[in-house]
């Protein structure tokens, strides 16, 4: 999509003299700094810029309007509508067309609500903030206006393609001034209404918006309303044929009625029947479509599309939806606007010409960070309005265009510290690149709090991104380790299912124990359960802890059994043999015999195997003695049993 190239200024003189370089941060930001390429073949030394000026790094971020607190509601509520829309599309039992129309209206009411909030707020602030809010109002007003027209032209189902009633609604909605004035006049003091300077402008304005009844009601309040000319005008307006697609009248029948009526009015104009009242004469010349009359009232119209709807109402009441574009251009020419079309004008014209691609191109530049283009494109895509473009435009792909907007919008929100989950929900609907984007971005969301970490893990697991979840756990484990919180680290390591890391931590626990005789995080060790199987070293730690517990609670027999099975298991870390042997001494020497002769043989075997361990050097004699004594006691005891 096109965009003009814009140059941004980094306000720094050093940057000007040396040139710039840039580095991206992980999500949506970049930093730039003064940079000069040094050739590695030159002699190394201070550059010409050394110490001359402090060098700065400029961290750049896009100014994202959507991140303003006042627009938070818009972002969240439109996300709800977006998700509803995806639900509707996946539900084959629903009538998609009518559901999409409902959703389109829902989006518009969200924008209206947002505009109301902005209107409320603008009264509360001053100066620069006021200007900013005014800018936002302009942006969202345009969005609503374009969306409404697109809804009429692309989403709504129009019987017989007779679009005029909807276009009038659209114009009435966006130019409510005349309706308001008329209502005020009719509800107020009715005597001498024409003295109000707004009387005739309101009559003409209402006429241009096709509110004939209002025009008649206003004219009735004129003090001369009983005069012949007023009564004649009232009769004419009353008799004006209005096309209704459901009335049973065919278009050709209607056109005949219409021609009769205009011929009749024209003859009355020609007979100078209205010349006594120039205003009424003007009204009559307008309703028959007299060019000079329309030129006279052009200034009543703020925009070309206001004129368009009025002009169509009195000259082409049965205009078909696909003819609107040519009349639109006609009105633009008439109002001499061709060369000063604003952005909004261009978008509306493109829509009326059914140039969907041009509409999408233009609305990318609305300065609201893609909110509008993403949601409208999504709606049009699902309404099937993009797929036919593929035949007309080479290299165009509706799917890819749709996905690229979702991807951009989703990634943008992922960069926000509290909107990242909203962002995720858009990436979820990018069929080809969404999951990969999540895989890249999700693990990089800063893990500021435990709660946030759990949320991120849940989102990863919901999408079966197991390795992402494991990596996050590993990082948390590593962080805990560096802060000396071994228990936390082990919990995370278990979640990360990283065997070597778990072993490393189990070793840490055991080493700590050999140093100070205390086992840390006993709660965790108590509840290891099957998690223990993550690594051999952890199994050993868990078993050793069980032994420790039995020993402490005086259950020597069970403790002894466990000790012997550990000795026989060959999962004892080398540095820990010493501890086990030392702790075996009191058991060997205990009053009650806790080791059988076979157990004692096992101990003696292990002792022989490990007798070269340096730390055992001064204990080996005691151990041998204790083992021998226990063996004799056990053998004697066992002999008695035979």
């Amino acid at each position, binding site marked *: 999509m096109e965009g003009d190239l814009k140059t941004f200024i980094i*306000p720094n003189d050093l940057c000007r003299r040396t040139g710039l370089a840039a580095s*991206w941060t992980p999500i949506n930001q970049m930093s730039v700094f003064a940079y000069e390429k040094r050739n590695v073949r030159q002699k190394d030394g201070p550059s010409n810029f050394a110490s001359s000026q402090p060098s700065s790094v400029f961290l750049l971020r896009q100014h994202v309007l959507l991140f303003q607190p006042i627009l938070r509601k818009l972002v969240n509520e439109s996300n709800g509508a977006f998700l509803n829309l995806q639900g509707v599309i996946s539900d084959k039992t629903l009538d998609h067309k009518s559901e999409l129309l409902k959703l389109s209206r829902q989006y518009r009411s969200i924008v209206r609500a947002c505009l109301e909030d902005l209107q409320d707020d603008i009264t509360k602030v001053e100066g620069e903030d006021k200007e900013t809010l005014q800018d936002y109002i302009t942006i969202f007003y345009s969005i609503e206006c374009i969306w409404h027209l697109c809804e009429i032209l692309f989403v709504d189902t129009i019987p017989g393609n007779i679009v005029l009633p909807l276009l009038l609604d659209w114009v009435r909605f966006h130019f409510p001034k005349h309706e308001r004035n008329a209502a005020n006049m009719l509800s107020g003091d009715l005597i001498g209404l024409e003295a109000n300077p707004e009387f005739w402008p309101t009559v003409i304005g209402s006429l241009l918006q096709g509110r004939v009844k209002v025009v008649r009601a206003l004219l009735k309040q004129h003090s001369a309303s009983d005069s012949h000319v007023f009564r004649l005008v009232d009769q004419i307006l009353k008799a004006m044929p209005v096309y209704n697609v459901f009335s049973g009248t065919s278009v050709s029948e209607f056109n005949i009625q219409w021609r009769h009526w205009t011929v009749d009015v024209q003859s009355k104009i020609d007979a100078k029947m209205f010349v006594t009242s120039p205003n009424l004469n003007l009204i009559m010349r307008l309703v028959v479509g007299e060019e000079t009359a329309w030129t006279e009232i052009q200034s009543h119209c703020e925009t070309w599309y206001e004129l368009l709807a009025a002009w169509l109402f009195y000259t082409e009441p049965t205009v078909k939806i696909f003819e609107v574009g040519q009349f639109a251009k006609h009105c633009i020419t008439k109002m001499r606007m061709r060369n000063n079309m604003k952005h909004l004008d261009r978008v509306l014209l493109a829509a009326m010409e059914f140039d969907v691609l041009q509409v999408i191109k233009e609305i990318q530049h609305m300065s609201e960070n893609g909110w509008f283009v993403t949601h409208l494109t999504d709606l049009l895509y699902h309404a099937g309005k993009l797929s036919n473009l593929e035949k007309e435009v080479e290299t165009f792909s509706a799917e*890819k265009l749709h996905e690229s907007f979702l991807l*951009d919008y989703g990634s943008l929100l992922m960069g926000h510290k509290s909107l990242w989950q909203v962002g995720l929900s858009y990436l979820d609907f990018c069929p080809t690149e969404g999951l990969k984007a999540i895989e890249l971005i999700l693990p990089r969301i800063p893990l500021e709090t435990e709660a946030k970490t759990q949320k991120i893990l849940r989102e990863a697991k919901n999408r079966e991104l197991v390795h992402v979840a494991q990596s996050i756990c590993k990082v948390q484990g590593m962080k805990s380790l560096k802060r000396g919180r071994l228990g936390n680290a082990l919990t995370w390591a278990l979640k990360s299912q990283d065997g070597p890391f778990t072993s490393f931590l189990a070793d840490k626990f055991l080493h700590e124990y050999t140093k100070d005789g205390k086992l840390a995080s006993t709660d965790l060790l108590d509840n290891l359960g099957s998690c223990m199987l993550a690594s051999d070293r952890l199994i050993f730690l868990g078993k050793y802890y069980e032994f420790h517990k039995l020993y402490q609670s005086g259950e020597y027999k069970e403790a002894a059994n466990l000790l012997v099975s550990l000795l026989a298991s060959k999962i004892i870390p080398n540095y820990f043999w010493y501890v086990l042997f030392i702790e075996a001494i009191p058991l060997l020497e205990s009053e009650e015999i806790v080791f059988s002769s076979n157990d004692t043989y096992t101990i003696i075997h292990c002792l022989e195997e490990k007798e070269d361990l340096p730390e055992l050097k001064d204990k080996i004699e005691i151990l041998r003695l204790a083992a021998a004594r226990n063996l004799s006691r056990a053998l004697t005891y066992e002999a008695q049993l035979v």
Partner: protein
Amino acid sequence: MFEAQEINAEHKDLIHDVAYDYYGDRMATCSSDQYVKVWDHNKDGKWTETSSFKAHSGSVWKVTWAHPEFGQVLATCSFDRTAAVWEEIVGDTPGPGERGTRHWVRRTNLVDSRTSVTDIKFGPKIQGLQLATCSAEGIIRIYEAPDVMNLSQWTLQHEVQCKLACSCLSWNPSLSKMQPQMLAVGSDDANPANGGKVFIYEYSENTRRWTKLETISSITEPVNDISFAPNLGRSFHLLAVATKDVRILHLTPVEDVQSIQSGLTKLEVESVAQFEDHNSTVWRVCWNITGTILATSGDDGCVRMFKMNYIKSWKPVAVLKGDGSHVTSEPQKTAQAIPSGLQMPPLSQTARYFKLGSISQPRDVPWH
């Protein structure tokens, strides 16, 4: 519309590289003043220097972070012919908040190169802790820490002769274990007669060797930087090259009888974009996280951004340019420009952003 926060880097000479950690919460800078500085970002978005250490005895060219699974680890390379790995240690005495006192220790010094070490990059974490360096003498070295819990032991696993002076390298950040590791290396050799200046290497598990897959013959001018884009599930690898212009290449693995027999990937190389917008030599290329926007810097002093649209064609979208004459016109800015160094504590802990002025057309830039 952009807004910027100025961080006074307090280096005594120009900065050669700025690198962000995995989350963008920490920033490392390196400079010709031989120092590396580490910056942390507080809850309110303000950046403060938390470490500054003399890393080398020559200009420090590059600084790069390891994946946080390995802890807080940096690697640097320098004109002094060495590369180094640094780890941050949290002291036993807890400081304010949850963090203890921190400092960086040099875990290893890699001294195999006989010339300036021009680039250094950690490999994809799926392969463990690997480090690639390249040097002016034309050798690529792959180091590995066999025990990731012990960063003082690194073994030199591979030395790959490149024949031409190497200036830059990039790992293919493939996310799957299925894909063989791939490296792209650029040479700033000035003689076009020496042929292509970009080389693609692949590691073969069978032969346990790095093999050159491809020399990109269409690029014969000196190459200053090279970078693989993160892979968004595309069927091709995206490679950006900084040479006399900006090049964007698609490398598409093709499966044919020959490649299956040899066990080596065969690549189809296609140049998809070539931008001469800098009108001069291009020094650096850098991808955003999804590989959809490329930022480049060149001898015209500008940073330029290029974006890929939905049908994978590339367009310039924005330019950044330094200009000191705008400084005085921004009152808020001048307050910022006062170095906030050591003399007094910052008044506000909240980061201040100012809007960047622009030379502009009325339209806004579609950044995304």
